[in-house]
C-alpha cells in the first residue's frame, strides 16, 4: 500500500507540475519554392480604424490582383498586439504566411532571424527597382549595410495635431514651433479639467517613438556605432526626463495619461479634453470619432531651434509599414508579384489614400490627393526631418526595455513624485542591464 501510494504521489506530482508549465516548439528552415503557384496567404497589419474596415479596403484590391494574375490571396488582418508574436511563432515553426506586413521598426530584428527574403538588386528589379522608393523609407527596412529585409508599403511621420477651438479660446494664434513655446502654451491650455498635451504613458512603442526623437535633439543615440546599447548617456537621460517632465514638472499632461495604452489620448483629443497630441496620421481616427477636419490643425513636431531638419533638428521617426516575404514560401514568384502589385503607383495611391498614410513610392506621392495640409506636413517631415529608429538587431528588445522604463517613470510622475535626473538614469540603467544579459 505504502509503495503504491508513494508511486502515485510521484506520478501525480510529475503530472501536475508538467501540466502547469508546458511549453512548446517546432522547426522549419525550408527555402522558397513555387510548389503552389495559385494561392498566397497574406497577413496584413491593422491600419484602419478596425479590422473589418481593413478587410473592406483590402478585399477589392486583392480581387483585382486575382483577376490580373489568377493568384488567390487569402487575407488575414492581424491586430498589432498579436502581430510580432505571430511572426515569431511563424519564424520558429516555419508555418507562416507567404507575404506579411511588419512594423518597419522591427525590420532589423526580424532580418536577424533570417526568416525574411532579402531584397537584393535582383529581387528589387522584379518590382521596378530600388529607385522607386523614398530613401528614408528604404532605410527603415533593415540593418545598415545589408540588403533590406522588406519593402516599404505605407509611410508615416509624426506631427503635432492641435484643437483649433481650444487654441483660440486660450488666445494662442499659432501652433508652437519650439518646446519652450509648447510648454508656455501648454500652461495656458491646462486648466479647468482640460490639458494641453496627450501622452500614451503605458504604450511602450509610442514612448519609444517620442524619446527617440527627443534624444536625437539632445544629440544622443540609443546604440553605439557597433550596435551596443547606450541608454544612460546625458542626452538620452535628458530626453526621457524632458518627455516625462511634461507631466511631472510642466504639468501639461494629465496624470491619468500614465496608464493610457489603447489610444485613449486620441479619444481625449476628439472630445476636446486635451488640446494637442503628437501622433502619426491621425486624421482617420479623428474622423471616426466624430471630429470634423476643420476642428483640428496640424503642424510639424516642435524642435528647440524651431526649424526642423536633420541631426539635432530631427522631429520624427520614420514611421511606417513594410511588406516582407517569408523565405520559405511555396509561391515565391507569386509573392514577388503581389509585392509588385501592392507597391505599384496605382495601388499605392488607392491604399495610402484609404489609410491616410504617405506612399513610400515617389511617383505615387506626387498625386494631388496627398496635397492636403496634414499630408503635406507629414510628407515634408518624412522627406526632410525624419530619422529611422536604431537599425540594429536588438531594436525590438530596446523598445520593450526602454519603453517599460518610460512607462515606470510616468507611473511615478502620476503618483506625484518628482522625477530627478538620477531617477531617470537609474531606470534607464536597469533597462540597459536587461539588454546585456544576453
Amino acid at each position: 500500500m505504502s509503495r503504491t501510494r508513494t508511486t502515485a504521489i510521484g506520478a501525480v506530482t510529475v503530472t501536475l507540475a508538467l501540466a502547469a508549465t508546458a511549453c512548446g516548439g517546432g522547426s522549419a528552415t525550408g527555402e522558397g519554392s513555387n510548389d503552389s503557384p495559385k494561392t498566397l496567404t497574406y497577413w496584413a497589419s491593422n491600419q484602419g480604424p478596425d479590422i473589418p474596415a481593413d478587410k473592406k479596403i483590402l478585399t477589392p484590391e486583392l480581387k483585382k490582383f486575382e483577376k490580373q494574375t489568377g493568384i488567390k490571396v487569402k487575407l488575414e488582418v492581424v491586430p498589432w498586439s498579436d502581430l510580432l508574436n505571430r511572426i515569431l511563432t511563424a519564424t520558429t515553426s516555419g508555418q507562416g504566411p507567404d507575404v506579411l506586413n511588419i512594423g518597419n521598426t522591427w525590420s532589423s530584428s526580424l532580418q536577424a532571424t533570417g526568416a525574411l527574403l532579402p531584397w537584393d538588386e535582383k529581387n528589387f528589379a522584379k518590382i521596378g527597382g530600388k529607385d522607386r522608393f523614398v530613401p528614408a523609407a528604404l532605410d527603415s527596412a533593415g540593418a545598415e549595410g545589408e540588403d533590406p529585409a522588406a519593402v516599404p508599403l505605407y509611410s508615416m511621420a509624426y506631427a503635432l495635431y492641435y484643437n483649433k477651438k481650444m487654441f483660440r479660446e486660450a488666445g494662442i494664434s499659432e501652433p508652437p514651433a519650439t518646446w519652450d513655446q509648447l510648454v508656455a502654451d501648454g500652461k495656458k491650455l491646462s486648466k479647468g479639467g482640460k490639458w494641453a498635451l496627450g501622452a500614451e504613458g503605458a504604450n511602450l512603442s509610442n514612448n519609444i517613438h517620442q524619446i527617440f526623437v527627443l534624444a536625437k535633439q539632445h544629440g544622443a543615440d540609443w546604440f553605439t556605432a557597433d550596435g551596443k546599447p547606450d541608454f544612460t548617456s546625458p542626452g538620452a537621460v535628458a530626453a526621457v526626463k524632458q518627455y516625462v517632465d511634461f507631466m511631472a514638472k510642466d504639468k501639461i499632461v494629465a496624470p491619468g495619461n500614465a496608464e493610457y495604452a489603447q489610444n485613449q489620448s486620441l479619444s481625449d483629443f476628439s472630445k476636446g479634453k486635451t488640446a494637442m497630441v503628437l501622433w502619426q496620421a491621425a486624421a482617420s481616427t479623428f474622423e471616426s470619432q466624430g471630429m470634423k477636419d476643420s476642428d483640428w490643425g496640424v503642424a510639424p513636431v516642435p524642435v528647440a531651434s524651431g526649424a526642423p531638419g536633420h541631426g539635432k533638428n530631427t522631429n520624427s521617426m520614420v514611421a511606417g509599414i513594410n511588406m516582407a516575404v517569408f523565405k520559405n514560401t511555396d509561391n515565391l514568384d507569386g509573392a514577388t508579384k503581389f509585392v509588385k502589385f501592392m507597391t505599384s503607383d496605382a495601388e499605392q495611391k488607392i491604399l495610402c489614400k484609404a489609410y491616410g498614410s504617405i506612399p513610400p513610392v515617389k511617383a505615387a506621392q506626387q498625386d494631388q490627393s496627398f496635397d492636403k495640409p496634414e499630408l503635406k506636413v507629414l510628407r515634408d517631415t518624412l522627406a526632410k526631418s525624419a530619422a529611422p529608429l536604431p537599425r540594429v538587431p536588438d531594436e525590438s528588445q530596446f523598445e520593450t526595455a526602454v519603453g517599460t522604463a518610460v512607462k515606470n517613470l510616468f507611473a511615478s510622475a502620476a503618483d506625484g513624485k518628482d522625477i530627478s535626473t538620477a531617477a531617470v538614469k537609474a531606470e534607464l540603467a536597469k533597462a540597459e542591464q536587461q539588454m546585456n544579459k544576453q
Partner: protein
Amino acid sequence: MTTTLDRVPGPGAEAASANPAGRPRRRRPGRLRKSALPYLLLLPAVFFELLVHLVPIVIGIFMSFKKLTQFFIRDWGNAPWAGWDNYSIALDFDAPAGQALLHSFLITCAFTVLSVGLCWLIGTAAAIYLQEAFRGRGVLRALFLVPYALPVYTAVITWVFMFQHDNGLVNHVLHDQLGITDAPSFWLIGDNSFVALLTVSVWKGWPFAFLIVMAGLQNIPRDMYEASWLDGATMPQQIRHITLPSLRPVNQVLVLVLFLWTFNDFNTPFVMFGKAAPESANLISMHIYQSSFATWNFGTGSAMSVLLLLFLLLVTGLYLLYTSRGRRAADA
C-alpha cells in the same frame, strides 16, 4: 498553460472520496486479470499525455540549454549550446536578471499565499452559510458561480475598465462617493497594482473553492451535527470540530489546485497590464514571458520555466507527502 488543469482533481479527488460506502472491491477471476488489457486501455491516454505534455516539456528543457536568441529561432536545433549559462544568468541573484527573477518570485509567492488564502476563506464561508436551506439559496449559489463561469478575458477587461484612473468605477466609489481616498488612485500602474491584481484573482478564484467545498459538505452526515447540537455545541464549535475535519481531504486537493493555478496565472496579469507588468505585480509567468518573448531570449526564458517546474514539483511533492502522511496518521 491552463488547458489541462481539469485533469488535476482526478487522482486526489478519488482519494478524497475514499470509498465511503465501504463496498468491497470485486475482482473477476480468470485470465483477463493477469492480461495486459488494463495497460492496453491506458495506452491512448499515455500516448496523448506524452504528445501533449511530455514532448513539449522535454523540448523546453532542451531549449533551456541553448543560446536561443533571434539569430537562431528559425533553425533552433542548430543554436549553439549554452551549457548552464542560462541557469546561471537566472540564478545569479547579484546580477540584474537574477535579482529581477527573485523579486518576481517573491511577489508571486506573496500573491499566491494571499490569493489562495482569501479564495479558500471566502469560498468556505459562503459554502457553509449556504448549507442551510432558505428561499433563494439556489439563485445565490448560481450567482456566486458567475465569476468562475465568465470567460477570463471578458471578466478581466471589465475589471480593467473599473480600475481606470479617470473614469473607473472603483475610483468613483472610493473617492467621489465615499471619500476614502484623498485623490483618485492609480490601480493599473505603480504599487497599487498588486492590490488590483489580487482583487481580480480572488474574485475569479473563490467560486471554485465555493463549489468544491459545497460538494464536500454534502458528504458530511447530518446526524453528526444533530448529535453535537444535543451535546450543546455552538456553531463555531461545530465548524471547528465537525465541518473542517470532515472537509480535510477536500481542502487538501482544493488548496493544491488553487496554488498551482494562482502561481502560474498568466491570463489575469497579461490582460490587466499588457506586455510590461508593473514591478509590484510582476508575477513569475509574466516575467518569464517577458524574458522570452519581449526580449527574444528563449533560452533564458526556458531555463526560468524549468526552474519554475522544479519548484512546483518540489512544493507539490512535499505537500502531497505531508498531507498523505497526515491522513495515514489520522486513519491509524
